């Protein structure tokens, strides 16, 4: 009887999954968090190339811990802090998320504009020290790019972005632009 019980226990314990272990935990630095300069309920005015004005609403900003996906039972994982801002506008129908992770995990900021994804490594020097757009001067501007794009379709192609204003300009493949209004 004891033998059967031992075999049963061994069978049960051997079929159980080992606990996954967190092998690293990365935090966002204050400098990295500043790359998402949005606050909840903020309204930001933008202008389309033809002069049409609209507001982008910041509907949520959250900092949370995430972990890498594990494919197999007992696989180890990495935890990392992530800060994301969610922006929305009614006309045009923009749903935007901007997300940063610690540079030890990922050096890119990702911007999702509806179904288009644009990214940029912000651990390096900005693309433009200064940039003048619509008579406004912007400093340390990064140019995000959409790498998977069919230029015959009107889609977000580039985004100009900095730590002070966030999205300064969205450039479409037909060269029309959505620009922050100051």
């Amino acid at each position, binding site marked *: 009887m004891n033998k059967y019980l031992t075999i049963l226990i061994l069978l049960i314990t051997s079929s159980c999954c080992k606990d996954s272990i967190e092998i690293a935990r990365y935090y966002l630095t204050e400098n990295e968090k500043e790359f998402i300069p949005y606050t909840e309920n903020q309204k930001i005015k933008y202008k*389309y190339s033809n002069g049409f004005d609209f507001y982008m609403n910041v509907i949520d900003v959250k900092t949370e811990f995430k972990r890498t996906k594990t494919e197999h039972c007992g696989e180890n994982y990495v935890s990392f802090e992530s800060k994301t801002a969610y922006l929305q506008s*009614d*006309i*045009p*129908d*923009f*749903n935007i998320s901007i997300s940063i992770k610690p540079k030890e995990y990922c050096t890119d900021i990702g911007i999702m504009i*509806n*179904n288009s994804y644009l990214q940029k490594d912000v651990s390096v020097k900005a693309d433009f020290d200064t940039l003048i757009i619509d008579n406004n001067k912007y400093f340390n501007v990064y140019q995000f790019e959409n790498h998977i794009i069919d230029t015959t*379709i009107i889609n977000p192609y580039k985004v100009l972005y900095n730590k002070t204003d966030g999205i300064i300009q969205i450039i479409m493949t037909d060269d029309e632009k959505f620009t922050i209004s100051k």
Partner: protein
Amino acid sequence: MMKSLQLANRVLIIISVFFLSSCEKECLEIQKLDEYMKVVKEWTVLDTIGNQIIIDNNGIKQTLVVTSRDSFSPDNTAEDDCGNTYGSFLYSIQYNTSLSPLNFMIDINGGSILEEEFYLKIFIINTNNASEWHKSTTYNFYTKKNPENNANVTYFDKIDISNKTYQGVLKFVFNNTFSKSDVKEIYYAKKYGVIKFKKANGNTFEIE
């Protein structure tokens, strides 16, 4: 005795007539089916119509992208007791809007049941995960009705959009919308497909 026999005969005749009439199947109305099959096929989109630019009330442009189109015409999908067979027809076209998170799928169907199988059905899906919704509505070419009763469907002989005249247009106006960005109205033209739609917030998008 004689009376009983007469009664039995009558009952037998009535039962036989009832039995025979219940066994009889209606023949397919081939001529009428052909007529409506021709009608539904007129609503398919020309192969030369591909991606098109759409422009909203505020002059903001995006692309109405044709993501797929298929046609399928199996033979002999229906058979009657009069020796007739009939095929069916299914055409499907799908669109995405390049900026707005919308997906349109249109099915055009022809079959062998006049009241049910000759229709144009529109599916609308919001592809934004944050507020995912989908809905559909139908126009039956035979009954000229919307079987779901969820939209008001009007047929126009012609409609002008951006200096172009479209001959034969169905306008669907949904009774309900889920949100401000939900589609309230959609226009579908013979041979050209989706040519216009209007959101619940009033913003209208038209083929340029």
